[in-house]
């Protein structure tokens, strides 16, 4: 008596959101199964990988990253290099220099950076703010404006500034909008509800439901994503059917395991290896939990995760 295979069919699916234009445009989401459950139904679109670059340039002390970007000095050159990374589908520009507690770059200066990157790359572009709510509220609408016609993803609208960011990116300038919440299904849903009430098309929203490096409260990430995908597919909850994008690099490279020096932790071995491991394993775990796109930074992490996705498809 052979095994009685019982595929799990859902009469619902995750929205498909297209980012970028032309040949290199990518589609996020579209699946009607749990992650990589290709034995239930084919997965519409493979999860995508973005390469993170920053307006601060290559601040990294990681040899593999420095080597990869060798010869690139302007942000345009860096971004151009990033899109050639093996396995990369899009580039994610982080405007961290805007942080008032950091470099506090002016909005004009940051917009110049965005323009330069947009001109340099042909792949889809995701732009992240500086995480300071007030600054982002002012900055991100201008980013949406300057990227008109590029069909970019603007990250992120949050509870505090979704009106300004959502209206500019989603309504005025026809971009895709990232909706960022803090690892909680209800917060994620609530933000989608208010954004759509504002008039933003639900089909133009990509969720960033937050993340953590593995080992750092990652159970909340797993459960939040499990529950969101469960509600989206089995209850057809269209306020949770937006694809999910996860900024892995930022979390993975800022925990102790990826930062402690070799002098402090001799038995742990090379710092670069530790950072790659943290990034690769965190990315694999968020993809296993339902993320439709991950943002990474080390070339080896991008190549590895790209290979894993290909093998699973």
């Amino acid at each position, binding site marked *: *008596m*052979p*095994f*009685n*295979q*019982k595929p*799990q069919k859902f009469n619902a699916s995750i929205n498909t959101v297209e980012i970028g234009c032309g040949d290199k445009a990518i589609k996020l989401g579209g699946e009607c199964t749990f992650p*990589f*459950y*290709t*034995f239930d139904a084919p997965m519409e679109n493979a999860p995508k990988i973005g390469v993170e670059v920053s307006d601060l340039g290559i601040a990294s002390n990681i040899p593999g990253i420095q080597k990869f970007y060798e010869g690139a000095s302007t942000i345009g050159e860096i971004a151009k290099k990033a899109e050639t990374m093996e396995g990369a589908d899009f580039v994610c520009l982080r405007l961290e220099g805007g942080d008032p*507690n950091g470099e506090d770059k002016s909005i004009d200066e940051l917009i110049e950076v965005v323009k330069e990157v947009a001109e340099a790359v042909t792949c889809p572009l995701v732009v992240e703010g500086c995480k300071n709510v007030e600054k982002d509220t002012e900055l991100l609408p201008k980013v949406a404006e300057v990227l008109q016609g590029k069909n970019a993803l603007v990250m992120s609208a949050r509870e505090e500034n979704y009106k300004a960011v959502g209206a500019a990116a989603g309504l005025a300038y026809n971009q895709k909008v990232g909706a960022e919440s803090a690892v909680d299904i209800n917060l994620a849903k609530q933000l989608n509800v208010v954004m759509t009430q504002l008039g933003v098309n639900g089909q133009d929203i990509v969720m960033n439901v937050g993340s953590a*490096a*593995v*080992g*750092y*409260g*990652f*159970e909340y990430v*797993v*459960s939040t994503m*499990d*529950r969101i995908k*469960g509600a989206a597919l089995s209850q057809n909850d269209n306020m949770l059917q937006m694809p999910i994008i996860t900024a892995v690099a930022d979390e993975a490279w800022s*925990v*102790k*395991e990826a*930062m*402690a020096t070799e002098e402090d932790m001799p*038995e*742990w*071995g*090379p710092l670069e*290896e*530790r950072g*790659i*491991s*943290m990034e*690769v*394993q*965190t*990315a*694999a*775990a968020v*993809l*296993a*939990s339902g993320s439709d796109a991950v943002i990474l930074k080390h070339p*080896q*992490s991008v*190549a*590895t*995760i790209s*290979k*894993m996705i290909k*093998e*699973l*498809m």
Partner: protein
Amino acid sequence: MALTGIQIFKMTPKKNCKECGCPTCMAFAMKVAQGALEISKCPYMSDEALAELSEATAPPMKTIKVGTGEGEYTLGGETVLFRHEKTFVSKTRYAVSICTCMDDAAVDAKIAELQKVDYDRIGERMHVEMVYVNYEEGADKDRYVEMVKKAAATGKTLILGCKDPEVAKAALEVCKDGKPVLNGATAANYAAMNDLAKEAGVVLGVCGADLNEIYDTVAALEKAGNKNLVIDATGSSVKEAYANAVQIRRAALKDQDRTFGYPTIVNTAAIAHGDRNLQQALASLFTVKYGSIVVMETLDYAEALPLFGLRQNVFTDPQKPMKVEPGIYALNGADENSLCLTTVDFALTYFVVSGELERSGVPCNLIISDAGGLSVLTAWAAGKLSSTSVATYIKENVEDKVKCRKLVIPGKVAVLKGDIEAKLPGWEVIVAPLEAVQLVKFLKDLTA
């Protein structure tokens, strides 16, 4: 699958003797079906009836034990597919593989290396728990047995990856007391392997070309009376391994197909041979999705630190937060004169805060008192973090050990400053910023 009252009634002796406390056997059967009474309350049930009933009421996934002593691990016994429904109970265990295809020097190096990772993370010992000793068809039997001996000498629990009954027999001779897993039953050899596993009293691993073959072999072994099994879900590719691991677990828990109600082994060394990074990606994937034992070619500190952290997270009780032990944690080489900071014992808070403090490079004493494993605001709201709790802990556990009299409290409970100062004469209380990420700058400014 649950039995109905009528089905249970048919198994009773129908004596209506009332010894079970019920007026009739029928009434008793109904209560048992509802779960209100135990079948053992009737002293007259036949052994066959008891066996059938215990089978019917058995959990959907068996709990299998491997290894002995400190190296004894419980696999399986899961009841849910998603951790928010209920706690995952049996942690994924990690094995490093050695193989007859490696030369002696490589085997020795690997055995030495796999013992290096050994550390503590929130009260849990983290180390490579198992060694997978792989036998390639046609390799020398004696050499394999020697490898098994070397692996057994590490004290780790073994998995013998061997499909040749004669070789397996010789290997079991030298390691069976350690309760290894014999991973190598197939459709072709299961009868011989079953005899070996039963005689040695070890768990038998079932392999097969596809899910149907595995399914049939498990069914045949069960029929032969062996339910002490694990299933090798590896298959021939990454895609197949994932499809197998998910479908085996789902069939058992969602569709109540007990033939697949066993723990699984996923051997990443076989499907991502020589690709360390892909193997660690897969180890992470199969920790989240349904691998009971994950085999890798290496597991050094770089790979272990995230992997064991992930496992610790995924296998926590969703109702019970992880806690760190109360105490004084000296960071960045702090001594009795270094600045004191305090926060709650919620593991996540501790990790975030201690991570930022370490990043600052400023020597400091992080004081953790018992706050019920809650985050700062929740603990404060629940009365578990108060001026009294902080002051009492400091008086009883800190004042005699630390000379510094400056205490930094979490920004979110700035309101406690006055009260703590009143209750702790001689201490200066300083309020930290609201978010942990601001700690580095704050500390640098404070100690500048």
